[in-house]
């Protein structure tokens, strides 16, 4: 079967002339990626400020009067939803997916550039609708990021009118945006790879983003369905989720709905969502580790299969979020089993990352520091997941700070460390400038140690039984004074970590002008995006001729090769007149 011609078109598939076509209504995947990244970062900063305000209340109760109970719940809700959906999902798929897929696959652009452009603008619309909820009567919803009915739409919950409506509408719009983008990412990976780029020669970053996109395309409809049905419950008075209930002395008129149905739908989306965020991070961190350890990734094929296995299994574990909602014990047994099974491919990946580092020529660059930091936090978060995956252990720990510590470690801190590592790694390619290394390292240590200072004590609080989602703990007998001291320390650490983001932003912005000019391949990496004729890559990426992949993405420190890296587009004969042929390969194995 011949490779597909779409990748080999000589002419760019769209041809911008004006400033607006180039930078605003742009169809260029690189510009769209940056647009996605800027908006996601902006909205993520808002979520960061919200978390700082929550921590102020928790660390210093009733000292900051602008954080009243209603606002506290609104901050919790918006922080969670923004971080998971509008920052991490958008950044990994819309940002890194857009930038990396065509460049790493050797394509000129996405296969549907116009749809790609629409995807960004629809995403921006979803963000604007979400942010509008801060300015409507009642403010944003305070129902918690899971938006469980019946309380999400009942009066008494902050933002029960306009707030929840705008949240649901925004989520619906977001699903449309991510579907438009997802169609592009999947089709581009399947159809627009350059000559020689077999699926098994693709870098793991592309594998991670590709699989996460498929998860997104199949799981986000569950969020869409639940958003539509809850909107109707809240506005037209239907009873999909709303049971017969008396609220604040009044009968809202609902009857017979099933709140559990919402939970099933939400988590059928919600658990794959964890992997929609994690799989791109898995892929990217694999590439960072291999590049900066100057070593091929250990067990490439196993890594690909593990990504696919995790993706498949992620659809059959959702109810482990609902152990305390009440379910048939056999269901609990089933979901606990699938949850523990998913640990197998995940552990394979962790072993392979560590074995990639083993005897590598480790360069402790800023991206590498973040990648190694990720291994620590992810192992930590993964191990606490084993506790919560078991029904009997989960029951006492459910709704405590143990859970907060777990999920922040595994799907908050870990992916964010990869995001930072990836931004530092690809910054020279995206901007053509190097960042300030010293500031980068300061940022890493503040973030890495700071997040441990925040989340490690939360496990201790959880085991003591400190409940999550409480505005104030007050004086209770079962909580020792140390709980309040720990809460105070966590808040101080959280504020320090929040401030470290300023160091990051300063570094990124100032280096745009003052950074040293970057060479085209400063990390001496093998993947195709580092082999573009110009840095930053221009429109169409590859100049007159598309690259041809002659090898896989991990030819680092190959015995007999003149350098410790051999780019994917280097033919055997040009770089190695005698070649390091199959016989030598076999001897090495």
């Amino acid at each position: 079967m011949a490779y597909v011609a779409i990748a080999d078109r000589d002419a760019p598939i769209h041809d911008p002339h004006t400033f607006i076509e180039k930078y605003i209504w742009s169809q260029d995947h690189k510009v769209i990626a940056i647009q996605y990244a800027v908006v996601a970062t902006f909205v993520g900063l808002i979520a960061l400020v919200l978390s700082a305000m929550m921590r102020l209340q928790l660390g210093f109760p009733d000292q900051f009067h602008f954080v009243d109970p209603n606002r506290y719940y609104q901050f919790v809700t918006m922080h969670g939803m923004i971080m998971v959906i509008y920052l991490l999902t958008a950044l990994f798929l819309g940002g890194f997916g857009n930038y990396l897929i065509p460049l790493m696959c050797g394509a000129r652009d996405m296969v549907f550039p116009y749809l790609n452009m629409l995807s960004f603008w629809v995403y921006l619309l979803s963000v604007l609708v979400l942010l509008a909820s801060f300015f409507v009567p009642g403010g944003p919803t305070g129902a918690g990021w899971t938006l469980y009915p019946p309380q999400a739409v009942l009066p008494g919950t902050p933002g029960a009118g306009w707030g929840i409506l705008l949240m649901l509408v925004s989520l619906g719009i977001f699903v449309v945006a991510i579907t438009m983008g997802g169609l592009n990412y999947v089709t581009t990976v399947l159809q627009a790879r350059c000559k020689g780029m077999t699926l098994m020669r693709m870098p793991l970053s592309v594998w991670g983003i590709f699989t996460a996109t498929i998860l997104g395309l199949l799981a986000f409809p569950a969020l869409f369905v639940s958003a539509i049905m809850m909107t109707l419950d809240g506005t037209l008075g239907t009873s999909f989720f709303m049971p017969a209930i008396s609220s604040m002395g009044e009968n809202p008129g609902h009857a017979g709905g099933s709140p559990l149905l919402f939970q099933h739908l939400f988590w059928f989306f919600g658990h794959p969502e964890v992997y929609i965020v994690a799989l791109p991070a898995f892929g990217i961190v694999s590439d960072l580790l291999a590049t900066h350890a100057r070593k091929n990734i250990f067990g490439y094929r196993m890594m690909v299969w593990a990504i696919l296995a995790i993706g498949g299994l992620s659809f059959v574990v959702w109810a482990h979020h609902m152990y305390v909602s009440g379910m048939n014990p056999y269901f609990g047994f089933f979901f606990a089993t699938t949850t523990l099974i998913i640990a197998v491919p995940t552990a394979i990946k962790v072993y392979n990352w560590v074995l990639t580092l083993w005897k590598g020529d480790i360069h402790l660059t800023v991206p590498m520091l973040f990648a190694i930091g990720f291994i620590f936090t992810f192992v930590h978060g993964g191990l606490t997941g084993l506790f919560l995956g078991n029904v009997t252990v989960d029951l006492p720990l459910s709704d405590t700070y143990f859970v907060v510590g777990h999920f922040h470690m595994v799907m908050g801190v870990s992916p964010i460390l990869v995001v930072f590592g990836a931004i530092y790694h690809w910054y020279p390619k995206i901007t053509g400038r190097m960042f300030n290394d010293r500031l980068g390292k300061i940022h890493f240590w503040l973030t890495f140690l700071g997040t441990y200072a925040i989340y490690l004590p939360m496990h201790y609080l959880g085991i003591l039984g400190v409940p999550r989602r409480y505005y104030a703990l007050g004086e209770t007998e079962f909580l020792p004074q140390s709980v309040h001291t720990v809460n105070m320390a966590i808040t101080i650490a959280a504020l320090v970590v929040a401030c470290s983001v300023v160091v990051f932003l300063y570094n990124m912005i100032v280096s745009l002008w003052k950074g040293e000019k970057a060479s085209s391949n400063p990390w001496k990496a093998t993947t195709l995006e580092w082999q573009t004729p110009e840095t930053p890559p221009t429109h169409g990426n590859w100049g007159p001729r598309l690259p041809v992949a002659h090898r896989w993405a991990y030819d680092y420190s190959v015995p007999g090769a003149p350098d410790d890296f051999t780019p994917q587009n280097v033919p055997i004969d040009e770089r190695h007149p005698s070649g390091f042929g199959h016989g030598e390969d076999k001897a090495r194995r």
Partner: protein
Amino acid sequence: MSNTAIVVALLVGIAVWFAVASRLTAKPWENRGEEGDVGAINFSPARVGLWVFMAVVTSLFALFLTAYAMRMHHGVGWCHLTMPRIAWWNTLVLVGASVAMQLASSSVAAGRRQFAQVALIAGGALSIAFLAGQVAAWQAIGPSLYYIQGSPAIAFFYVLTTVHGLHLVGGLYVLGRAAQRFAGGAELVDLRQSLSLCAIYWHFLLLVWLAVFGVLQFL
């Protein structure tokens, strides 16, 4: 639980097919230099994009219908919906639209312009008739808020027909653009893919409607 088993079996099947079709057993560290076969599916990007989109829509409706079944069994106050007579006629109309779209596609492929024109007009007209028929079905079932609030089955009927109808409207937009090119005298060979994809999409929407209709009527 049996639904979960079916979903798992389906996912495993797709994964195995994908692994075999994409040669995921290859050892890329061995075959340096061989340009090899990229293992891409031999379809146009638009065709692949449509299939991926249909997978998303399948997921959407499968979840809606699962929610319907769960709401029926888990909630209380369920009152079964009997589909109005006009919904049966609408089903026939959509079958007609699907057949017409297939005829339009195959006559464009065979180079029969005049027949293609008739089939295209018939396909579009029957689709619009289907949408009008669905609105009539709303009227027949009970258009007031009283019924929507009172019966979850009726509320599901409204939601499912609206979402399905919106997908058909999207298809009509694409069909309209192809018809515009057709009327503007575009070469049939250039329209072949568009109409072929439209026909596939119409068949798909027919299948979705049959699933929706079947669940609402018989479950």
